């Protein structure tokens, strides 16, 4: 009797047990279920939600691996122990030492994120008596990528519990939530523990611990520096593009994000409309600010000057706008659901992100706030798009009657 048969018998034997969804989640992870169609279509396409979510995870894995190396690289670089790497394939970047630091710091984040989040999902599935839904597979992967590397694990756990319960389960679980759960977690961390989530000490492993010692070093991000009119800290455009800069774990490498985006668009899992329109929105706002600077409406002494003066296209490779556009804004549940609505939704995300980035003195990254804001407005956008269709239908009747 094979494993398949044993598991099947176990499932049948315990089919009225409360905890069965928990078992099923593991069983269906191993085997696609034996469920067949009833009336309706008798055949079904190959894709299911697990496959869809898995595709997004695959698009995220390169960012995660890069993030591990980068964690170690930034750590050693800030201490002055290694040379700065020249380009994506720089000799001092892809080293075993860097990876070891990354594994030590990043893997626990992944494990805690998945462990805590899935535990909450399992509990809710059992309480409510439905199957464990796959939404958290992607959320759990996104969370470690958008937090600073040195975040304490207990803080992450608290945030994950909050994000999954308040961001998702209270609305009825995957598919029903209004706010992107991963961003809810990020927002909770930001507002509950602001000192941990911003400033210049959190982005490089060890920077905080070294404060006050003779070896103290800073781990400032480019965005934070620009916001204080301090320039780009000596990083050139290519450093930003390849991602060998300080930042949240997985969002630094624009190169790998673009690869992930192309993969998502190619597999038809990610919405190219949202990705493209977000970038258009960001560029538009960047252009407007460039216009403001060149019209000399603000002077160099203005505290907004540093960020406003960034050439508009560079906004895309600074900060996490690209990561947000590709992996966050495209979450189908919380995004606009109509094709026309997706254009508007994405455009506004990009537009507002850059606006917040420039005007917010306390925290220069506005992407997560912009996306959360547009999550809230997505149903409104859809409503007006759909009204177009409804009006066309009503007009047909009127033409007839006239």
């Amino acid at each position, binding site marked *: 009797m094979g494993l398949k048969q044993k598991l099947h018998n176990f499932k049948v034997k315990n089919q009225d047990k409360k905890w069965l969804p928990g078992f099923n989640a593991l069983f269906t992870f191993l085997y696609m*279920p034996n469920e*067949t169609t009833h*009336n309706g279509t008798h055949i079904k396409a190959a*894709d299911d939600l697990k496959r869809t979510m898995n595709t997004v995870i695959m698009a995220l894995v390169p960012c995660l691996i890069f993030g591990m190396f980068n964690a170690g690289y930034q750590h050693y670089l800030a201490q002055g122990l290694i040379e700065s790497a020249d380009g994506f394939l720089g000799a001092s970047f892809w080293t075993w030492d860097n990876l070891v630091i990354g594994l030590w710091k990043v893997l626990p984040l992944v494990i805690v994120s998945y462990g805590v989040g899935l535990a909450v999902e399992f509990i809710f599935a059992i309480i409510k008596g439905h199957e464990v839904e796959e939404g958290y597979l992607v959320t759990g992967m996104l969370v470690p990528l958008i937090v600073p590397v040195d975040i304490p694990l207990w803080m992450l756990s608290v945030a994950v519990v909050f994000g999954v319960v308040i961001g998702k389960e209270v609305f009825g679980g995957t598919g029903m939530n209004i706010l992107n759960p991963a961003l809810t977690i990020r927002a909770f961390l930001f507002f509950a523990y602001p000192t941990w989530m911003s400033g210049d000490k959190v982005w490089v492993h060890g920077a905080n611990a070294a404060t006050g010692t003779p070896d103290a070093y800073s781990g400032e991000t480019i965005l934070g520096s620009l916001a204080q009119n301090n320039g780009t800290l000596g990083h050139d455009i290519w450093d930003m593009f390849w991602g060998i800069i300080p930042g949240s774990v997985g969002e630094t490498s624009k190169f790998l994000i673009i690869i992930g985006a192309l993969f998502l668009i190619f597999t*038809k899992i990610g919405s190219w409309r949202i990705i493209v329109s977000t970038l258009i929105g960001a560029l538009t706002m960047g252009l407007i600010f460039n216009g403001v600077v060149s019209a000399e409406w603000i002077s160099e002494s203005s505290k907004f000057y540093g960020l406003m003066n960034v050439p508009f296209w560079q906004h895309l490779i600074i900060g996490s706008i690209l990561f947000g556009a590709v992996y966050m804004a495209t979450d*189908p549940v919380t995004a606009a659901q109509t094709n026309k609505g997706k254009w508007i939704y994405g455009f506004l995300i990009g537009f507002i992100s850059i606006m917040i980035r420039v005007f917010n003195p306390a925290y220069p990254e506005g992407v997560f706030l912009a996306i959360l804001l547009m999550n809230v407005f997505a149903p409104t956008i859809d409503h007006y798009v759909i009204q177009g*269709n409804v009006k066309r239908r009503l007009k047909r009747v009127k033409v007839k009657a006239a």
Partner: protein
Amino acid sequence: MSKDIRIKKGLDIKLVGEAEKTTENAIISNSFTVRPEDFHSITPKLVAKEGTKVKAGEPLFFNKDNEAMKFVSPASGEVTEVLRGERRRIMAIKVTADKAQSYVDHGRFDLNSDADALKAHLLASGCWAFIKQRPYDVVANPSNTPKAIFISGYASAPLAADLDFTLAGKEAELQTAVTALSKLTEGGVHISVGKGTNSPLANLDNASIYMVSGPHPSGNVGTLINKVSPVNKGEVVWTVNAQDLVIIGELLLTGKFNAERTIALAGSSVKKPRYFKTKIGAEVSTMIYDNGVDKDGNDRIISGNVLSGKEVKPDGILDYYSNVITVIPEGDDYEFFGWNKPVFNKISPSRALTFSWLTPNKKYDLNTNTNGEHRAFVVTGNYEQVFPLDIYPLQILKACMYKDLDEMEALGMYEVAPEDFALTEFICVSKQPHQKIIREGLDLMLKEIG
């Protein structure tokens, strides 16, 4: 006066087991069964009790709300069983056939009669059952005058019977039926035929002919209606299946209700897929075993096509509206890591490690596995790729689920039938039963608005 309709959105599902174009006479069925559930929303009132002798074309039951609307026996014989379900609802009426068939003779119908006489004739002879209406996708209400009548002469569904083949040589009946139907409406009869095909419907008089092309659902009557003249609030259109025109035509010409129909036996479980001449309500076992499926095979037998047909057991019957029986393997087995390994042998609209996009002309052998579990709606934007109507599919489905009548109406519920949502159901990542949701939504509207 033919016009072109070309649709781009849709999906051709190419399956193994297309019927070969040879016709055999099916073994004559011992019994013929009529199931009132085929006529959705009709409450049957039984006429022929157990033990009654009926001729072919003699009423078995009538519509409780409209006594004139008769539903007749497809064959002559004795009513041997009236199967009842909950609350004595009639589930099936079984007629054990005579050796020699005898028919009720209604006489040749004078085509110059007025619409009322024609209606009465169709109602009394049992042919009214073939006329369906939208909104609601139910048997038409004879007191209405429809805006127009629509007929699809192009079957684009997977493994559907080729209407050009099954209707060949029936031009006289088709023409008679179309001429008669054109008297029942002021908006004319609209017929779609496949572009570049040799359809016997293409040259009919008293009808507007449309040449359709593009992927399935180009041949669905719902697509034709939406492109020609969508149903507005307060309007009614009627639809008739092309193969049923033959029965209507023959009734008008000869006075006999001849339930004979050429049907396709198709599907990957069938050894030699081909066409059969048989009758409505015949037992499927008369067709599926000879050079067909294995007796002890684990197969799904479907009366109708794989997208919208009904599951029947081997002792089941060909239902009233179908012209195809499809047999495909059941998929009640687990698949190791089925959700993440690359897939080459199944159709997928995405490219998420599914490779059907590489081989657009490959024919697939799909089984009935759902390929995943039922979930809430998550993915958006994919239904629109296969849904050619000017309607928001996801939103209308959700409106049906939360039973908001105003919103259902505003989003176009009057225009749709469950079969229009077959493709969105096929590709649904969340494995939601779209056709069932739409059917229940339509039933609710029928009950509340009428």
